[in-house]
Every structure is written in C-alpha cells, then in structure tokens.
C-alpha cells in the first residue's frame, strides 16, 4: 500500500487594524523596541482589556468570506502559560466559543478541485518578541507586538500533499488581501502557518501527528512537508513509532528538530476571560459587516468579462493577486481603456516581472504612468516598439513617459516625406532583398519593413511604413 500524507494547517493572520485588540496602541510593524506599548498591552498590574470592535468585524468578514457560521454569542478565554514574551502570562484567545465555525475553501491542484474544511476561526492577541543578543548572552523583551490582533484559521486535516497546502495558502492569502484584513507579509510575520502532519497507509486510520513551527515562507512550508513526510515514513518503515511532538523547522539546515513532546505538553488551563463581557453580534451589526465585504476575486473575474469584454484567461490572471487587480482597475479607470490595460498587465508587465524575478505582491508600478503610455499608443503618438521600450523604462526606473519619449526621440514618425525618404534609402541599400522580393519571396518584405523601421530609429508609423514600401515596390 502506498503511503499517504495527511496535513492540517493552523494559519495565524495578524489583522491590519490601526490599533491593538485591547488598547489604543498602534499595530504598526517595527519601531523602537517597547515604543508601541501602554500599561494595558504590557500587562501592568491592574490594567484591563477593552475589545477593539474593528477586530471583531475583520474576523467576521473573514468567516463570512470563507462561508463559515458566525458565532453570534461568542466569548474570550484565557490561555495560561509562562513565557517572557507574554507579559500577563496568559493569552486572551477563544476556546469555547470561537467567532466562526464550519468554513471552507475550494482549491485546485493539477485541474482537480477539492474543498478544504476550516474547523474554526478564532480571535486572539499576539505575543511580544524576544531579542537574543549573542554578544553578551542576554535576552531582551520587545512588547511592541503584544496585543496585535490575530485570527487563527484552523483547517481540518484535509490536505493530502504539499501542493494542496500551498494552493490553499496562496488562495487564503489572496482572500485575506482582497478582504483587506491582513497584509500577509510572511517575512514580517503577519501571516504564519503551523503544519500538523501525519502519514498512513492509504485507507488506514490517521497516524500520530507532529506539529511543525517556524515556517517563514511558502517555500519553507513545501520543504518542511516533504522532509517531515519522509522522516515519518522512514520511522514507520523501520518499525518505529512517531512521537507526538512539536518540531521546529530550520530552513537553513533543511531539517526539523523536536521541541517538546506530548508528555511535556503544557496544560493551558483555559477558562473564560472574566475581564471581558460575552461578545454578542446582533443582526444589524452582522449585516453591516456583510455589507462591508469588498468584491472578491471571483466577483471581479466575472465583472471584468461582463463589463469590459476581457477574456476569461486574462480575467483569471488579473484577479489572481489583489495587487494586480488593484493596478488593473486603476489603469483602466485612468486610461479609459480596460482592454488595453488588461493586455498590458497580463502581457508585457508579466514578462517584465518574470525577467526581474518580482512576485506580484512586490509589484510597484505607477498606474498613472501606465495609463499615459496606453493613451499615447492608442492615439498614435508612439508605436508599439516605443511603447515597449518606454514601458521597460517605467518598470525599471519609474521614468516619466513623456520626458523619456521626448529625450529618446521615440515619438512616432508619420510624416510621409520622412518615411518615403527612408524607404528610398533602404531599397537602394538592399538590392539583394529587393531582388528576392521580386522573385516572389514574401519574407523579404518583412525584412525590408524592419530595415525602414531601423532607419527611423524604431519610431516609424508601422502602417505608413508598410504602405510606403508597398507603394514603392509596386511601381
């Protein structure tokens, strides 16, 4: 029997509210250590939490977008454990009545569609950070991140491969971005995933699972799943037993290491948080949250096809990443040319991104400049060659298109005299190609067009060049 990998995911997403979950401190990333703290989030004795309603709205928004049931009578619980990054020595979280249950998301891997179950989404507060200073062997505490709101999205163990996990994470990230609830920067820790993994012979009961932490990129997650699958299979094939434990992934070494086993597992002594009232979401509030959900990828996809006549294929590419669809919408609005904007983003811009090795989340091009370029090419001020060249300059160096075109002399030449002179000169210089054409070789025509264009510095009006050349040849 074949081995099968079974994975469940716990995804932590930091919500991009302006202030923290229980106080008015900023959630901004970074800052001088302990500069974004107050008596509440630093856990000073006697302070009390005050729930930020926006956090609830973001969590509910996510739950609704993922098709979940919203718990209208929700509450918070305390998760107790000692660690220096947790100033109150308990984390306010939700165990008994999480804000959302029974959600799910459809993924597609190699053409196969599958729904991944999401058991629950709960709200909680983030912990601080410990900074280890190796030089003087000291550890310092930075509480800036304490109290930054998180949602934890807990999947069912529905994944059977690393590809499925990555497809889910990609789609989840895009959904959170579209919802505007999380900026999803894995490198800043605003999106984190823990992997629960076990292996079994197909058809058998679930095996013992391990939980893997410290996965800081999608790539690391893929590698870690591969590594852990092999590690567990090896143990089982040698007749051993997998230990239920938490393991830490070391991406540099490409290995994971056991942190603590179940025997040493902490008893978190959860109990209802007495400092917060139970959370009730009435119909009116729920409706307002529903109404605040922005248009998501599939909605945009349909609208682009319906309203702009964009092809299904292009609409798909445009909506795969929020950054791209945002750019598309800005460029089409500014230029008034949605079709051309779609071609531009799915064609030339994708090509430039690939060459520069830039992923969609990091794409930063000025929508205004792209619209200017589109209007220039459509109105015949520049030709396609000049368009591409200027585009590359805008993409690489953020140049001003008008200035660049003027400076490089890329304005389209539509003066029949100038074009006529260029044609004459080319025909005089390329007698061989001329002879080929006359002897019926159609290819030679294209070559001659190219030569005329070259003579015009690439800026000739292509239609005019063709016409002038045809006219000269038919004489």
């Amino acid at each position, binding site marked *: 029997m074949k081995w099968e990998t079974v994975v469940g995911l716990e995804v932590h997403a930091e919500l991009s509210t302006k202030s923290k979950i229980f106080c008015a401190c900023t959630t901004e990333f970074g800052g001088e250590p302990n500069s974004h703290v107050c008596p509440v989030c630093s856990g000073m004795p006697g302070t009390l939490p005050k729930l930020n309603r926006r956090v609830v709205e973001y969590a509910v928004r996510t739950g609704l977008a993922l098709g979940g049931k919203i718990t209208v009578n929700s509450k918070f619980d305390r998760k*107790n454990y000692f660690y220096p990054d947790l100033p109150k020595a308990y984390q306010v979280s939700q165990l008994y009545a999480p804000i959302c249950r029974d959600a799910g998301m459809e993924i597609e891997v190699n053409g196969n569609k599958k729904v991944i179950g999401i058991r629950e989404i709960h709200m909680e507060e983030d912990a601080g950070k410990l900074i280890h200073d190796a030089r003087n062997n000291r550890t310092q505490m930075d509480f800036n991140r304490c109290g930054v709101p998180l949602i934890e999205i807990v999947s069912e163990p529905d994944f059977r491969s690393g590809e499925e996990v990555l497809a889910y994470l990609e789609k989840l990230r895009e959904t959170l971005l579209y919802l505007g609830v999380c900026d999803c920067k894995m490198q800043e820790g605003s999106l984190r995933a823990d992997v629960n993994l076990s292996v079994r012979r197909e058809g058998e009961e679930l095996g013992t699972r391990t939980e893997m932490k410290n996965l800081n990129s999608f790539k690391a997650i893929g590698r870690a799943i591969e590594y852990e699958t092999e590690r567990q299979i090896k143990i089982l094939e040698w007749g051993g037993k997998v230990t239920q434990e938490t393991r830490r992934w070391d991406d540099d070494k490409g290995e994971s290491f056991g942190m603590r086993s179940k025997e040493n597992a902490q008893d978190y*002594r959860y109990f209802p948080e007495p400092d917060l*009232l139970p959370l009730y979401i009435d119909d009116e509030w729920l409706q307002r949250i529903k109404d605040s959900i922005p248009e998501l990828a599939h909605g945009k996809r349909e609208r682009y096809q319906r309203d702009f006549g964009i092809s299904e294929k292009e609409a798909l590419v445009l909506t795969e990443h929020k950054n791209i669809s945002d750019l598309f919408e800005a460029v089409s609005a500014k230029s008034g040319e949605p079709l051309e904007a779609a071609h531009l983003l799915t064609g030339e811009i994708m090509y430039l991104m690939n060459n520069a090795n830039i992923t969609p989340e990091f794409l930063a091009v000025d929508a205004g400049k792209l619209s200017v370029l589109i209007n220039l090419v459509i109105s015949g001020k520049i030709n396609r060659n000049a368009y591409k060249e200027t585009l590359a300059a805008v993409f690489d160096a953020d140049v001003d298109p008008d200035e660049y075109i003027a400076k490089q002399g890329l304005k389209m030449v539509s003066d029949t005299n100038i074009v006529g002179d260029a044609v004459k000169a080319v025909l005089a210089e390329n007698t061989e190609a001329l002879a080929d054409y006359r002897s019926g070789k159609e290819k030679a025509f294209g070559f001659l067009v190219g030569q005329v264009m070259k003579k015009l510095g690439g800026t000739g009006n292509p239609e005019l060049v063709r016409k002038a050349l045809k006219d000269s040849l038919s004489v």
Partner: protein
Amino acid sequence: MFDLSTLTLAKLIRDREVSVKEAVCGYIDEIERTNNKYNAFITLAKERALERVEIIQAKIDSGEDLSLLCGVPIAIKDNISTAGLKTTCASKMLSDYVPVYNATVVDKLEQAGMIVIGKLNMDEFAMGGSSETGIFGVTHNPFDETRVAGGSSGGSAAAVAGKQIPLSLGSDTGGSIRQPCAFCGTTGIKPTYGAVSRYGLLAYASSLDQIGPIANNINDCAALFSLISGGDIKDSTCVSEKSFAFSENNEERMEGIRVGLPRNYFTSGIDSGVKEAVMSAVKEFEAAGAAIIEFEMPLLEYMVPAYYIIACAEASSNLSRYDGLKYGYRSADAKTLSEVYLKSRSEGFGLEVKRRIMLGSFVLSSGYYDAYYKKALQTRALLKDAYNRLFTQFDVIISPVAPTTAYKIGENIDDPMKMYMGDIYTVSVNLAGLPAAALPCGFDGDGLPVGFQLIGDAFSEEKLIRIARIYQNRTNYHNTTISAGRK
C-alpha cells in the same frame, strides 16, 4: 475635627473655616502618632499630599466647586494603583513596585479634589480575612490592639476606626470590605459588580472584585460612593452608566420595606454575641416599621467551596504575571529562566497566596476542570437565580457579616479552613454580584464591635443606602468610637 462626620468636615473646608492644609496635616500627624500601634498604613504620601493641598486650596479659594468631598484627605488600600506611589499588595513580590498609572477611582477622587495621603495595609494580594499575611506586618484592631482588624481591607477599616483618616477605599472579593468593617465598627459598602471601575485594582479574582468606600457612617460612605461609581471606558465589566446621586434624608421610618431574614444563618457556627447584636438590629428594623420575613437561604453549604474554587482559579491566572521579569521581586540566585520563575515566585509570594495559586491551578487543570471549576460556575448560576427570586419578595436581606467578632492576632492563622468558613455570610454576595452595606450594630461580651449587612438587588444601592441611613438615624453604634479609650 476627628470626631466630625466627613461631610461636616468637607463643608467646613468648602466654607473655608478649616483649611485643606489643616485637615491634611492634622490627619498626617495623627497617622504618624498612631501608626506604630495600628500598622494600618504601608505608605504615607506626605509630599504628594502637601503638593496637592496647595492646588486644591487655591481652587477652593477661587470659588471652584469640585465636589462635596473636596479637600478631604483619603487613604487607599494598597492594591489600587497610584501613579508614582508604591502599590505593594502587602507582598514581597511588589514591595518596591511603583505604578506608572492611576486607577480610575484614584483619578476620579483627585478630580473631585480629594487628597490621597497614603496606602493601607491588607492581607497579601487581598487573600485573607485578618490582615495578618502581608509582608509589612499585622494590622491591629483599634478597639483592642491584641486583635486583628479583619481583612483583607484591614488597614482601610482600622485607619477609619482609629481616626487616622476620615474615609478610605477598600476592595471586596468575598467580604474584604464588610468583614473588617464589622470587626472595627466602621461602615462600608461593597457595590454591585460593575458599579465601580476595577481599572487599576490589582486583580485577585476579576469576576468578584469590587472597590468600595469605608467610613464612620453610611452618609460619608454614600458621598464617597457617588464620586467613584459610574462607567469607565477602560473597564468593560463596569456597566453602570451613571454615577450614584448622593442625597441625605432624616427619615426614621421604613413602613413598606420588606426585610428578608435568612433563618439558617443563625442556627449554628455563629457566636452568641454576634447573633444577639444582629437580632437587635432586626428588632430595630421591626420597630421602624419594616416587615421582617424569615426564609431559608438555599445552597448555604456550597457557597464557600464555590467561592474558593472560582476566586482561586482566577487568582492563579491573575497572579501569573508576577514572574520576576518585568517588575517586582526577582530571586537573586536564579540562573535560568525556569529558576527565575520558580524562585522568584516561591520567595516573593507568601504561604496563603501560594496555597490559593496552587488550588486555582489545580481546579483549572485538564481532567479536573469539569469536576471543580465548571461545577462551581453552575453553583454560582444557581445562586444568582436564588437571589433573583428572593429579591422579588424582599427589598433587602439582613444578615450577619461574620460568625465571630475580631479574634486574637495569630489565633486562626494556621487554620485555613476556619478562616475560610469565616466568609460564609459574605461570599454569596460577590458570587451573585450584589451590593451590600456593612453597618455596626452593637458589641459582644468583650466589648468588640459587631456588624451586620444589608444585601440588596443588583444596582439597588440607592434603596440600600436609604434603608441603612434610616437605621443609623435611629441608632448610635456608628458613633461609638474608640476615642474615649485612646486618651
């Protein structure tokens, strides 16, 4: 000055017949003269007070009307956060801890022009009923210095009884305002849960704790209550929207008032001196025209266990933050992180606190949660229902505060069960979140004060205070002070 009611003193200050400085310095002198006897004060904030004196006097001189207690000195239980002023919880763990912020009640008092002149002794982290467990030593009962002042707000009650301060703030989690009031012959109010902001109260048991006033009579208590009550955006559990509106009256009759008397509170485990004094209070109510209706209080045997399970569970979590890392005591010889936790907490907390942390951790741990904590919550819900039903029949319930009067220092300290059973009459009020006022009603055979409590329905402080006031209008126990003995 020391024998005036606080409201009278406040009026003299407002009328500029007594200066704020005279009042404040008079009391400071008194504290300095007597504190070695009572040990009610942990910290005397002389400089802070004198600075405020000038500011407040200037405001009074310019005709500004800050509040009806403007210019009056007050002292605060040492588990309430005061910015820049040590807040120790009478614990080694926090013996040098200076908060960076004021509790909401402290802000409110200062806005009202009151002057905080010190911090008061208590049981460590408010865990106890005798004010013997604090690191700064035992608080002595001004009526008999060989006896305890009660607790945990022992300092708050003793300082008022000993005329060291006209008013104080205490906190009541299971009787910690009412019992020391009964032991020291003072008057105190444990407000409805959610009537006074807990922001800045160093939590013992969050779902039970409430800050409340202690004074020599119900009017002074009510005046102070009117300043500290009301909503606070910093405390989600503080649900009352308006603060209590203070008014005085000279009523002496209470026709139409229905007073519930829990028969089974008097059958066993109660000292005869206490029983007699409380029954005399019942007679007084009857004489005033109230209807006395006896009833059987349900769930009596479950009250103390449910209280200790819930309070300790919450305490085990609330006190986890004292880990030796950020503030407070850190063991000097801890070498690893787990040693910092273990040694700092072992050395920084006293025996009773550790006992409750362990009990609380146990009842919340997996495998025991359902058997203990969950059961206790169910008991609490039943108790709330029972009280709700009772308050359809009664306006107030009258009950003893404690089964005994003040006992000898050291007498019960090694017998936690006896100590815990001393809370039998008070804890149900906290479990149900109700208001109660403790009032003096006489003396036992040893001449020690006896107190009783009036328990009201949630947010019925106005009615409760009115009834208490009628009682004090008819009696003089609240004016029987120790001043004669002090000469």
